[in-house]
C-alpha cells in the first residue's frame, strides 16, 4: 500500500535498447512485489520516471498490458532528466509513479477499422494499443498503420516494425521524410500526412495519431480532408507536468488538466479547448 500520492516506487532497469541515436527504450521491473502484482494500466496512460537526485519526467507507457512482468518506456534525450536516464545502465534503479491519465478507447471500437498514424517517437503511445489491437484482432475490421520518421535511423521499435511488416492482418505503410532514405529502404518516401492521404483509409474508421506537434497538426488536417469525423480522430497531448494527478496546476488547457482529463483527446474535444497548447 503506497501512502503518498507523490512518492514513487522503485523500479529496476532490466534492459536498455538504443532505438535511434537519441532515443533509448528501458524495460523496467518493479521491485515491490505487491506493487507489481497490483499494477494495471491501459494503453495511452503515462507514468513519471525519477532519476533520484535529478528529477522526474513524464513518459507514456510504451509496452502493452499483456506483457505482464515489466513495462517499457522510450526516452528521447531532450533535457535534464532524459539525459540522466540516457546515462543509466542495466541494473540501475529509478523511481516510478503511475499509471496516470485517461486511455485510448478500445472495446468501444470493436467492429470498426482502426488507422494508426505515428511519427518518430510518437509511435511510443500507439505501440501498446497496436499490440493490444492485434491481440484481439478478430474484433476489428481493417487495421492500418502509417509510421514515419525523419530518416531510416530515426525509426523506433525496429523489431516490432519488422513483425508488423510481415503480418497480413495489419496494413502497414512505413515512410521516411524526403532525404531520409538510404539504399536499403523499401518503404515510402514522404511526409506522414501525405502518405496518409495516399493510403486513404476509409473515413468511417477510427484514426489514432501521435507524433511531433507539427505532424499532428497536418495529420488532423488530412483526416479532415479524408472525411473523418472529429469524434473519431484521437491523439494525445503533451504539456509540462509535475504531479500527474491534476493538483499542481501547470498542465491545464482551459479547464482541462492534461494529466487527469487527458492525455488522450479526440479532435472534437480539442476543438473546444482554448488555443494554448
Amino acid at each position, binding site marked *: 500500500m503506497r501512502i503518498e500520492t507523490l512518492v514513487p516506487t522503485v523500479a529496476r532497469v532490466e534492459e536498455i535498447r538504443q532505438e535511434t541515436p537519441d532515443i533509448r527504450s528501458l524495460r523496467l521491473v518493479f521491485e515491490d512485489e505487491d506493487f507489481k502484482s497490483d499494477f494495471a494500466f491501459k494503453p495511452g496512460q503515462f507514468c513519471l520516471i525519477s532519476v533520484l*537526485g535529478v528529477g522526474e519526467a513524464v513518459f507514456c507507457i510504451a509496452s502493452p498490458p499483456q506483457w505482464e512482468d515489466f513495462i517499457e518506456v522510450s526516452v528521447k534525450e531532450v533535457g535534464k532528466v532524459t539525459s540522466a536516464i540516457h546515462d543509466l545502465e542495466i541494473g540501475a534503479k529509478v523511481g516510478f509513479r503511475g499509471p496516470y491519465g485517461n486511455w485510448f478507447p478500445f472495446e468501444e471500437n470493436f467492429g470498426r477499422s482502426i488507422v494508426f498514424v505515428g511519427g518518430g517517437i510518437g509511435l511510443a503511445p500507439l505501440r501498446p494499443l497496436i499490440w493490444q489491437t492485434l491481440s484481439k484482432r478478430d474484433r476489428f475490421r481493417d487495421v492500418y498503420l502509417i509510421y514515419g520518421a525523419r530518416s531510416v535511423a530515426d525509426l523506433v521499435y525496429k523489431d516490432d516494425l519488422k513483425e508488423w511488416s510481415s503480418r497480413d492482418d495489419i496494413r502497414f505503410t512505413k515512410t521516411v521524410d524526403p532525404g531520409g532514405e538510404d539504399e536499403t529502404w523499401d518503404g515510402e518516401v514522404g511526409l506522414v500526412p501525405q502518405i496518409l492521404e495516399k493510403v486513404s483509409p476509409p473515413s468511417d474508421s477510427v484514426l489514432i495519431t501521435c507524433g511531433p506537434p507539427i505532424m499532428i497538426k497536418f495529420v488532423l488536417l488530412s483526416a479532415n480532408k479524408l472525411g473523418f469525423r472529429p469524434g473519431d480522430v484521437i491523439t494525445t497531448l503533451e504539456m509540462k507536468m509535475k504531479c500527474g494527478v491534476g493538483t499542481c496546476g501547470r498542465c491545464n488547457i482551459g479547464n482541462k488538466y492534461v494529466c487527469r482529463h487527458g492525455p488522450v483527446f479526440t479532435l472534437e474535444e480539442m476543438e473546444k479547448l482554448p488555443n494554448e497548447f
Partner: protein
Amino acid sequence: MKTIEDILRLIEDWQGKGYTVVAPVRSEGLVSFEVLRAPSQIDFDHVLTVNTLKDVTLPRCETLFKYDVEKASIEPSWEASQPIVVFGSRPCDAAAVTILDSILMGEVTDSRYARRRENMIVVTLACSQADEACFCTSMGYGPHDPTGSDIIGLPSKGGYVFRVVSQKGKDFASKVGLELDEGRADPEPELKRRITTDGIKAWLDENFESPKWEKVSENCVSCGACYYLCPTCHCFDIADEAGASRGVRMRIWDCCSFAGFTKMAAHQPRVGKHRRYRQRIMHKFKYTVDNIGKTACVGDGRCIRYCPYGVDITEVLEALRE
C-alpha cells in the same frame, strides 16, 4: 462574552492539553501566522495576516521523501502531526480552506494535505475592522461569515462571543470544555470596496482571446507575491534538492506568473505575461468554477495589498467585463 484575558487563558489550556496552536503574531511591522509559544504573543488588532493557512495545510516547501541513490531507497517523509488549532484566522482565510479542500480532497486526494486537514481545527476570530483592500462581501462571504470555521468568535463589546459552526468544532469544544457564549455580536464592519461578480464568468467563457488581457496586465512584473500570499492559489513544483548520493524530493510553491512554469524542453505553450496573467484570472474565476463549482477567490485582498505595482484584481475584473 469572553474577554481577551479569558481567551488567553483558554489558549494556554489548549496548549497544556497537547494542542499546537497557530495564531497571528506581530513581529515588527508584520503580522503572520506562527506556532504560538505563549498566548500573549497573539495579535488581536490587525486586519489580516500576511501569510495564510496554506502555511499549515500546504506549506511553502515540504519534504516528500528522502532518497539514497546507492541503496536505491525511497523513504517517505512524514512527521506525525499533532492536532493543530488555528486560532484567530479571519473568515476569508477560513473560507479559502473550503476551496482548497474541494480541490485537494475532491476527485483526487492529496494525502499530505488531507492528513493535515484532519488534524486541524479552525477557530476564527471574525472581523471588527476592514481595510481598503478587503472585498470579501463581493465574493459572497463577509466579515462574520462562518464558512470554513469550526468555531467562530464574533466581536462583542471589546471581547468575543464564541459559536460552534461544525461537528468538528462541537467535538473540540466538548473535549476542551470550551463554553459557548450567548450574547449579541457587534455589527459587521462596512467594506468600502465592493464589486458585483455578475457577468464575469460569462465574459471569461467567451473571451479567452481579448485585447483586454494586455491592458489589465500592463503593470504586472510577473513576480509571485500575489500567488504566494493568496489563500487559494495552490500550484506547486516538485524538485530534488540533491546531495551527490543522498537528498530529498520537495514540494515547493510555484506560480503561473513565472515564465518557466509551463516551459518544456521543446515547447512553451504560454508565451507572454498577459497570457500568464490570463491564466491566473481564468483559473480563479472560470476553471475552478467549471471544475468544483466555486470561485477561487475569497476577497481577502492580499493580492491588492502586496502587489508592488498596484495590480488590483477587483479593478481588473470590472475592466474585463466592462
